[in-house]
């Protein structure tokens, strides 16, 4: 299981190639890539704040529980923080399992968790100023499905 926080842009294709290599017994790899939206020009850049030493440990704790719950062979989570431009990837989640359903469900659960419970704080900067983005009721309900 690997959890990586980075302030540098990353290439999801390269991450997928590395993650999938040498998996003769795995059967299924599912990935999700979250990309920063421009929202019709309303967002010029995203600022994502993390709490080093806390954010990474919290994500590792959840990823480890998800890995056990779905009997995953491997999990990779890469999450940006700092300044992010529209069109750049913010998050990459990959799950590997013997069969597809476990891999899909685990990736779904990890993303629901990351949206509303992982320790990040997200601010959108646009032509009309800046605003904090907090989880919506839908995000909360999505995460609750797995409790």
């Amino acid at each position, binding site marked *: 299981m690997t959890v990586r926080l980075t302030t540098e842009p990353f290439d999801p294709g390269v991450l997928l190639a590395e993650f999938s290599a040498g998996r003769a017994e795995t059967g299924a790899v599912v990935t999700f890539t979250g990309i920063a939206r421009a929202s019709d020009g309303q967002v010029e850049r995203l600022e994502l704040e993390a709490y080093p030493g*806390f954010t990474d440990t919290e994500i590792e704790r959840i990823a480890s529980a998800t890995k056990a719950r779905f009997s995953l062979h491997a999990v990779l989570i890469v999450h940006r923080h700092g300044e992010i431009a529209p069109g750049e990837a913010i*998050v990459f989640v990959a799950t590997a399992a013997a069969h597809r359903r476990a891999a899909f469900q685990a990736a779904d659960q990890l993303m629901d968790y990351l*949206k509303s419970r*992982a*320790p*990040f*704080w*997200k601010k959108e900067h646009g032509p009309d100023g800046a605003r*904090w983005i907090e989880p919506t009721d839908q995000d909360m309900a999505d995460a609750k499905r797995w409790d």
Partner: protein
Amino acid sequence: MFGRLADVAGWRERSLAETPATLFALRALLSEESPALGAALAGKGVQVAVAKAIVRGDVALAAGVEVAFLAPMSGG
């Protein structure tokens, strides 16, 4: 202070010469300085981490310990 709490406080991080004995005493101190911050810290969805572990309710604070107030979180 993380997220919008840093905007309300007008600062992100600071050190106190003397550590209050408990988390509630620290909250009272911050509220006294800035009622707006006090209200924001008591707001919905705000969590507290002491020495990088989430706590609920009141706890004793060791001298020099790091206390983080966490606004509602959003990643991905």
